[in-house]
């Protein structure tokens, strides 16, 4: 067991005995990572914050039953994923947004007024736009595919970690991930030119 996992287990055991400061410590330790994961799934600060808050409430309610068979972080990911899926189930009228965007390059009048720079702020704008479209495309994926992409690519979890967090066989994780990538490719294909730049 890693040092971090052992420390978490001690905090959980203290929290199970009613030590509120131990629970607070767990919250402090994991709230940022939890938020980042939730935000990557939702792209909404408001929704991500609510998912994280709800997840910690579920942690609090389920603490007496936590046996330590899995690491706290794995358990938390599972709870966060369930909170996210529960919310999405209820959000039946959610609509997706248009991706019909194009990147154009042309000479603008500012060219005369702004000197060439050694570093290219335009590249930053393109890079940001590219990321924005990837995130928009992710929002169009079914929830179960999006969580695969987010966990593997953004959170950099291993197949084993994802399988443990989602309680799925590794083969299912791999095939879902491949399908998610293919779907993403399909959604992003109209923007392919933007992704060839740089």
């Amino acid at each position, binding site marked *: 067991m890693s040092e971090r996992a052992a420390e978490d287990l001690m905090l959980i055991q203290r929290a199970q005995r009613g030590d509120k400061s131990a*629970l607070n410590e767990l*919250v402090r330790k994991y*709230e*940022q990572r939890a*938020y*980042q994961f939730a935000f990557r799934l939702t792209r*909404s600060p*408001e*929704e991500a*914050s*609510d998912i994280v*808050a*709800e997840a*910690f*409430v579920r942690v*609090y*309610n389920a603490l007496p039953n936590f046996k330590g068979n899995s690491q706290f972080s794995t358990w938390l990911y599972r709870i966060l994923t369930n909170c996210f899926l529960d*919310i999405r189930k*209820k959000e039946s009228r959610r609509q997706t*947004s*248009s991706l019909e*965007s*194009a*990147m*154009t*390059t*042309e*000479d*603008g*009048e*500012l060219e005369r*007024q*702004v000197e060439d*720079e050694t*570093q*290219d*702020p*335009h590249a*930053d*704008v*393109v*890079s*940001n*736009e*590219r*990321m*924005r479209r*990837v995130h928009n495309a992710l929002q169009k994926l079914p929830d179960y595919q999006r969580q695969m992409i987010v966990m593997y*690519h*953004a*959170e950099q979890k291993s197949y084993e970690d994802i399988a443990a967090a989602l309680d799925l066989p590794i083969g299912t994780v791999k*095939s879902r991930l*491949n399908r998610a*990538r*293919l779907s*993403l*490719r399909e959604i*992003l294909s109209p923007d*392919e030119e933007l*992704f060839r730049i740089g």
Partner: protein
Amino acid sequence: MLKPEKARELFSDYYEGRLDSAMKGAMDATLYADRELKSDYRSFELTMQALAELPEEVIEVPQYLSTRIATRLEEAQAKREQSWTHLLGGWLRWRNVATAALALMVLVSGLFSINSDARTNVAGLFGFDKTAAPASLELVTGPQGGVRVMYGGEGSEVRITVGGKQTVLKAERGRQITPLENPNRRAVAFLVEFAGKRSVVVVPGTDRSPRRTGEGNLVEFGRALADAYGSPVEIRDANTEDRYAWNLAQTQPAEAAKANLGDRLQASVKELRSEPSSGTLTRLILLTPNN
């Protein structure tokens, strides 16, 4: 040769080098023979490259997160204590049928109250407006400072031109934010066009310039101002070709702008609010025609 569908199932393994040599050979041959599949695989590679950038995203945690978690945990704790009080305390005290009936009512109302709270929380989760908003654009800052363009309104678009290159940002449902980043030492001007309106936003570079005098057009003046004081500058609805000579001897950028622009333009200080919400405020110097 593999069937296209089978080959697509293997894209990830092929990309990540996890196929055995026989399967890799079959995949190589299939991609060589099938141009459409090869094109699909090329765009799959681009997707994978884009996904590789995902971990680099900086996600700012809202300041209210800790408070929200604490509030929800306190509510959960109070509910738990309350329900135990009702269940145990009430059951032991009430001894006759009439009071037992009352206990049942309290219990039911307690459960109802918990469910009501649950509904309220759920409503809170979905209470924010996700319907199409009218087209809008606003300059904001972020928790780490800087200048960001926040825009929204499905169907509208924002054009950002810098260094002669233009990027078209399509507004969608909800709000989008694009930071105007300048990694250079000197200030850079971004032309931001939206809904028929144009603004030049000058973002300071990493260094401050000791040079206080100069002459040039309005954009060059804006850059000199940003270089000297480190403040972003917005030039709105003004003729950027007008020429000025300047001496930035004042201690504050707004005073310097007022002193050097004469009557043609007015300079004011605009505080950019942070999005997402934080305590950060960025002061921008706004230059507009003096009507």
